[in-house]
């Protein structure tokens, strides 16, 4: 299952945090900053899988041949879109490449909802962000992977607020969704 979904920008400011276990606020912040330090030091050419941050690594038992999976998070997948990092923390029951696709679907659905999504959209409409995530993941379990259904699910909850036209501050992630390719 997926243990946490994080979105933060290039300077480490969180834009979305969703933990599927109840964690203390300060612990959340620590985890975010640890992952940010790891992620921000990686060159663009590196692969999208992170080593475990110290906070998580200390409690991870090695999988034994008899017991291939366990409950401790062991996989951190991230993707970098323009100014934003999307992070998934998951256990070994998830497939790494499929998680990359999941991020892709998430970003594409945001792109649909906001029409050329940018970081400001996420700041001002972070409720929509949560709603979209809620359509895809419930309690850390993936419930929907189809772009259309996610989008219609969020739209069904009510009108998605459009970004106010404020030319000049558009940190512009033009065609955010067009970046990257899927493995589906």
């Amino acid at each position, binding site marked *: 299952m997926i243990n946490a979904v994080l979105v933060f920008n290039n300077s480490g400011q969180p834009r979305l945090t969703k933990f599927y276990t109840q964690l203390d606020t300060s612990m959340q912040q620590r985890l975010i900053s640890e992952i940010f330090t790891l992620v921000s030091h990686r060159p663009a050419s590196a692969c999208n899988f992170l080593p475990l941050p110290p906070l998580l690594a200390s409690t*991870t038992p090695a999988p034994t041949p008899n017991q291939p999976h366990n409950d401790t998070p062991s996989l951190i997948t991230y993707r970098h879109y323009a100014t934003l990092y999307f992070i998934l923390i998951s256990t070994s029951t998830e497939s790494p490449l499929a998680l990359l696709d999941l991020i892709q679907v998430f970003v594409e659905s945001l792109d649909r909802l906001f029409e050329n999504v940018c970081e400001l959209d996420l700041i001002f409409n972070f409720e929509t962000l949560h709603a979209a995530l809620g359509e895809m993941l419930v309690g850390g379990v993936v419930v929907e992977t189809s772009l259309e259904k996610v989008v219609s699910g969020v739209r069904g909850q009510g009108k998605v607020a459009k970004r106010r036209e404020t030319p000049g501050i558009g940190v512009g992630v033009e065609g955010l969704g067009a970046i990257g390719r899927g493995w589906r």
Partner: protein
Amino acid sequence: MDLKATALLKLIYLEMFGHDMSWASFHVLEVMSCPKYPQKRVGYLAAVQSFRPDTEVLMLATNLLKKDISSPLPPTMSLPLITLPHIITSSLALSLLSDLLPRLSHSNPNIRKKTVAALYRLALVYPDTLRAAWPKIKDILMDEEEDSSVTAAVVNIVCELGWRRPRDFLALAPRLFDLLVDSGNNWMAIKIIKLFATLTPLEPRLIKKLLPPLTNLIRTTPAMSLLYECINGVIQGGILEGTEGAREGEEIASLCVGKLRGMIVVEGDPNLKYVALLAFNRIVASHPHLVSMHQDVIMGCIDDPDISIRLQALDLSAGMVNSDNLVTVVERIMQQLRNAPLSTKTADDGRRNTLGVEPAADSDGEDAEETLRPTAELQDDSPALPAEYRVTIIRQILEMCSNDTYANVVDFEWYIDTLVQLVKLVPFAIQSSSEFQGGDGRNQSQEANVGSAIGWELRNVAVRVSTIRSEAVRAANSLLAISKSDNSVLSSGGQGVLAFAAWVVGEYSDSSALSYAAMDSLIHPKAHSLPALVICAYLQAIPKALVSAVSHELSDWSSERKTMVSLLVARIIHFLEPLTTHPNLEVQERSVEFLELMRVTSQAITSHSVENDDGPLLLTRAIPQLFTGFELNPVAPAAQRKVPLPDNLDLDAPINKDLAGLLQRADQDFSLDTEAAEFESFYNQRPTQKAISSPAFDKLPAFEPEPEPSSYQQTEFSLSDADVLLRRRNERRERNKDDPFYIGNDDVSSGTSTPFHDILRSTNGEDVDVDSIPIMNLDLGDQGLVTDSSSMDMRKQKRKRPRKVHIAKDENIDNEDSGMDQNVGVTNPQQRAKDRAKKSLLQVDSSGLSSFSLNSSETTVGQLDIERQEAQDTEMAKALAEVERLRLEMQRASERIQATDGTPAEGTLVKKKKKKKLKDPVGESMAQDEETSHIEPQQGPQDAEGTPVVKKKKKKRKPAISNPEDEKAIQGN
């Protein structure tokens, strides 16, 4: 209310930045109960983000949740469904279960799939959920008319549940198989394959069934993720093993490996490279030959700019080495290490200025200066990652080579050469010398100490492979020489190796030319600045080297030779003298001992007449006998325990009954330093054998004015009374020498009495001999335990002689006392197991869970009720472990809070309660913590009443910052 919702929304945003909003939980509840959907949504979101296990208002929300779950509007209904997994507790689950179950048959598929997922989380805290919900979930899975995304969601949770109790899901295999073949949904296929990978070990017939579709998928699918998961499933499901020997088995194995190779080579995508290497790593355990066929690709990955890919490739190469390709693999990695300054630059390009570029990083391994300087510069301004990576590489190389008692190493000369080169490549500043000052080597962290790891290998080879010993000595000698000529080359990082090199040189140097060279490096003045631990090893090696330098040409004792030897001894004395005031007690003590010995020796030399053919007896006979005796052999770590405890040894008996008085006297008479040195010398100098057979208090008379009383004790030990007396006096003198108050007389007396004493000792022969050896022996065992006890174990088990080189095995006491031995042998494994269990318990708290669920799934009987029962147990154990883990994390967090920002007392109070509350579900299920669960309900309302006062104020402040600009300003801070 609208205003309140907006304020809450902003509060959620601030919470994301780490601002505590637990005080607002009552308001969250208020907004949740709003009739209007948008506001309700904000409330639920706030509950998800801010409710913690200690949030008391949650129990007030039960009715609200019940109402919303059965709301007629799908959007409203899904709000509690996605919120529940975050806030669920077992009591809440109990009361909400009956409302949730009907939702499984709701007309809207959206609701159905969310309900399934929510039920899964419910089951984690309240296992009884499954008993009621499983039949319906199963129906959904079996229903072919069901909406595909609902089926996918069910498959997802079945996969999650599957690895915990695979047996329960075997019955679903046919349906899952159909889904895999027919569905065409890659997401679902991936999950199903993952599930099958856990099922196949239980049902071997599945393998035959699965093989064709999997092969088909691997061949045809365009989706990389599915391809990878297929291969992964083939590996993890044991399909490779299951089809061993059969034609299809070979086929699929080579197909998988071929595809993986394709993923690395053709695609050029770092992610694919990484996962392909991961898969290779899993195959390598069972099929090393298959993997080593693709050595070229893997070696290519070692040079990849991405560190994580490199580490994977490195792991892989360690797994696939055999005696044929070991040399090439190691050479390749070494090559990278030598060129490291360049490659680490490319790894994080642009983040650093071009300070470290000029290094002539050619592959010149001989000149360590050239290759090492640049790295030092690099590390100054780049993160420590490269250094860590270097350490990992070196450790991997050592592990590769030493695996299975050097089963893969054919050419030991090459290995020693490699070790020497590795020393030069050890990164700087990996360990501070303060770690060395720590003293006995036990507290050196293993990670930091690559230098000593290399040294340990060097010594290990020297001890185990007798044919290569001279080579090892030469290598050690060259290392010492390097440290002499340029101290900076081996600064900090490489210094760990010196202690071992010194030991090897001292113990095994057998040609006098080498010994002279070794002496030169050992008593070089630069050695004074080395870490204390290294100096200790040096000190011990010096007399040994002296002996081997002198004793090989006994026959002609000419005047020329006499001057040479006396000059050497004089140099040693000169070297030792400053060390007697060394801050480290161990160094001080050893140097004082040997200084005395050397002074005596030099007197013996001067007083010895040239006419005699032999050299002075002291030099030719007495001192050598201190160091020669039994051959030193590796001792298994467990052997020590098998040494029988002597009957007359009572470890609990006080050494001295008048301890208090003794201490008082010590305060008056001696400084603290000498007191400590006294103890140190007692434990280190005394032969271990004697320490066992004689109660330690025979040392005490040294404090008393008259030495008489203990001599009765001493007569047991085949030593003459005179000898005992002399030794006693000797020791007292040595002790007094450290004491500033006794400086005056020691030189005079030592000159006269010790030669006699030493000659006496030498006549006692064997006994004395044994005295000195165990000191080194103990050292060996100690280090072995510290650095690599597990591999020692491996070595012990493996008794194999590769090729012509004989590799000495660990010695164990087997023949001594068979009856006793067996007794100890029986208890030994138990003890070891206990130790291991203790260790893992400390390491990970959730390990208990894994072993638990494993057991239960093994013992599962086919009957449904028992299965359910065990399922509950498993879930309960899981939940308990989860709670325990969370509790620990909270504890850590609260400690951190207190340490960092000094939250007011209010904050800490909340933390305390949190801990209690967390135990609450445990208390209910285990009936252990009755007191805490009783207290809770009373405290809850109080708190809820108390908080609003604070909240109102805060709420008033909130609207003030309601426009976006202000909010941004806050968030920018």
